[in-house]
């Protein structure tokens, strides 16, 4: 268990550094980091499915969007709701959706699984995009962000950038450590066993379908957490957050960062967004920045070819050895 402890220690260090960031007084970067941390949560939730259960979902954006829309639709026109019940409510909507679709979707395998998850996500997308229910393709706003109040005392005022930053940071840390715990348990080990060889696990007597479903639901609920926080950030939701592009982006972050490591997806989220910011900054790179997607694309291709364990693989000596053995 020692490697885990040293890993967790360094993650804590990173979180600590992040906690100090708002003191740098850069509003734009505080917002950017908030967004990255939200994506990190989103990516970690997907890693549970992809990296640990071996289920590649191409429709994870559905949960992100459902929770975001749930928050906006739950909020009355000009007042705010309390985070204490709106967050669990939003996550429950996601968990329920995951439960129902999971029962259908988990009957398929491999590429078919990928496509069916895409199909369900697309259906949710079209519900919000084509109907007036959720404001249609232009999206909707909330005018007042949720409150975080205990007994009349306001813990955090989410209208303030820094407060939201800390809330997201706390959640990111919580999700990381929660998933660490879950994955270290019997449940987590069973998932890994299922990923390795489902038939064998089934032969050993594990009810593999139930395990997969549990993983699917947990993954969906945590994806919803990310979506809820994202909706708070700008108070604006739009069907684009349900698009397959979004599902694809988070999948890229997981793979690029290094799936099956939990910290990999966090690295992936940071790397992806920061790289995008850097490459598209016209004041730094001038005209070249207009075509930043070219550099981004080349970078992604190189990672796919030469970094089989993702970026996190760069950080782990053992992983490097394994990769060398693979080649």
């Amino acid at each position: 268990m020692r490697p885990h402890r040293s890993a967790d220690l360094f993650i804590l260090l990173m979180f600590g550094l992040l906690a100090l960031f708002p003191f740098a007084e850069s509003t734009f970067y505080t917002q950017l980091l908030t967004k990255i941390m939200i994506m990190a949560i989103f990516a970690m939730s997907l890693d549970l499915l992809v990296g640990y259960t071996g289920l590649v979902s191409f429709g994870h954006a559905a949960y992100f969007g459902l929770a975001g829309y749930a928050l906006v639709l739950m909020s009355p026109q000009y007042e705010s709701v309390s985070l204490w019940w709106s967050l669990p409510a939003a996550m429950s909507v996601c968990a329920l959706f995951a439960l129902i679709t999971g029962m259908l979707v988990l009957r398929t395998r491999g590429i078919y699984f990928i496509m069916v998850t895409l199909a369900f996500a697309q259906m949710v997308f079209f519900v919000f995009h084509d109907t007036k229910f959720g404001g249609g393709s232009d999206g909707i706003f909330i005018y007042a962000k949720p409150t975080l109040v205990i007994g009349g005392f306001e813990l955090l005022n989410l209208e303030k950038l820094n407060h939201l930053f800390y809330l997201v940071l706390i959640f990111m840390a919580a999700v990381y450590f929660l998933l660490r715990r879950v994955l270290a348990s019997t449940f987590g080990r069973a998932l890994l066993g299922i990923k390795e060889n489902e038939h064998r696990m089934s032969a050993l007597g594990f009810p593999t379908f139930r395990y997969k479903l549990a993983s699917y639901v947990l993954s969906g609920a945590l994806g919803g957490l990310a979506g809820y926080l994202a909706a708070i950030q700008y108070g604006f939701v739009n069907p684009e957050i349900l698009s397959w592009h979004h599902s694809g982006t988070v999948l890229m972050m997981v793979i690029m960062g290094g799936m099956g490591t939990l910290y990999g997806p966090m690295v992936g989220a940071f790397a992806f967004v920061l790289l995008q910011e850097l490459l598209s900054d016209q004041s730094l790179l001038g005209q070249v920045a207009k075509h930043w997607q070219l550099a981004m694309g080349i970078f992604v291709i190189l990672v796919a070819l030469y970094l089989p364990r993702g970026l996190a693989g760069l950080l782990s000596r053992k992983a490097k050895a394994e990769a060398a053995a693979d080649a």
Partner: protein
Amino acid sequence: MNFSFFLIQLLNGMQYGLLLFLVASGLTLVFGIMGIINLAHGSFYMVGAYLAWWLAGMTGSLTAAILLGIPLTVILGMSLEWLLMRRLYGRDHLYQVLLTYGLILVLEETRSILWGDDVYGLKVPDMLNQSIALTENLSYPVYRLFISGVCLLLAAGLYVLIKHTRLGMMIRAGASNREMAQSLGINIKLVYTLVFALGVALAAFAGMINAPVSSVYPSMGNPVLIICFVIVVIGGIGSVKGAMAASILIGMADTFGQVLVPEVSGMIVYLLMAGLLVWRPEGLFSRI
């Protein structure tokens, strides 16, 4: 709608479906035979369209443009396979997803640098630029019928290629068991290169031939990509027969959906796919 319009809508659905087949056939081949998920398939469609516009601009004729463009795309496909794709055989599908996603970005930006971001139009070749009157108001463009004809020919050609030629036999052998085929003396590397190039060329050809109808514009490959995947999955991966069946099915569903239930017509294709996969998780037909 009365009966004659019903027939016309059937024709619409058929024609749309055949076009979809043309684009999706390449994807299902590459996927089924090489086991490669190619997210950049839509981008090759776009490359074909832009190439057609560019070459037609230079030569003044769409036919010449297509004849010149096809070999170019074959070369493009072979180079990409040699440079990138072959390093991914045997690796987890996810790396193919990642690499081809990067490829989409590269192709899109390269297109932007080379040919700009405007909407371009292409003229239909004069000989085909007429319409057949179907009712007093409505005519059917001959060019669309021409495209459908080409699609059918191509479908037949692919079928013959795969089922009745030696190359087809080698392809099927390689798809079943790569090592075995190789040990039997088949140059699997070459077969794979050719199949990938064929896939790219089919997508590009679809873009070229449809360009006068669709116009040529940035990110035109995106909607194509997603619907191709749906077709491949419904039809059964690797099955050309399946791709044809699925394409027609989707063509009809989309056409009648737009007219009968416009509010949900965007979703129909996905409802179909989800329903089918839940009933028959491997798609309509199995391999080739």
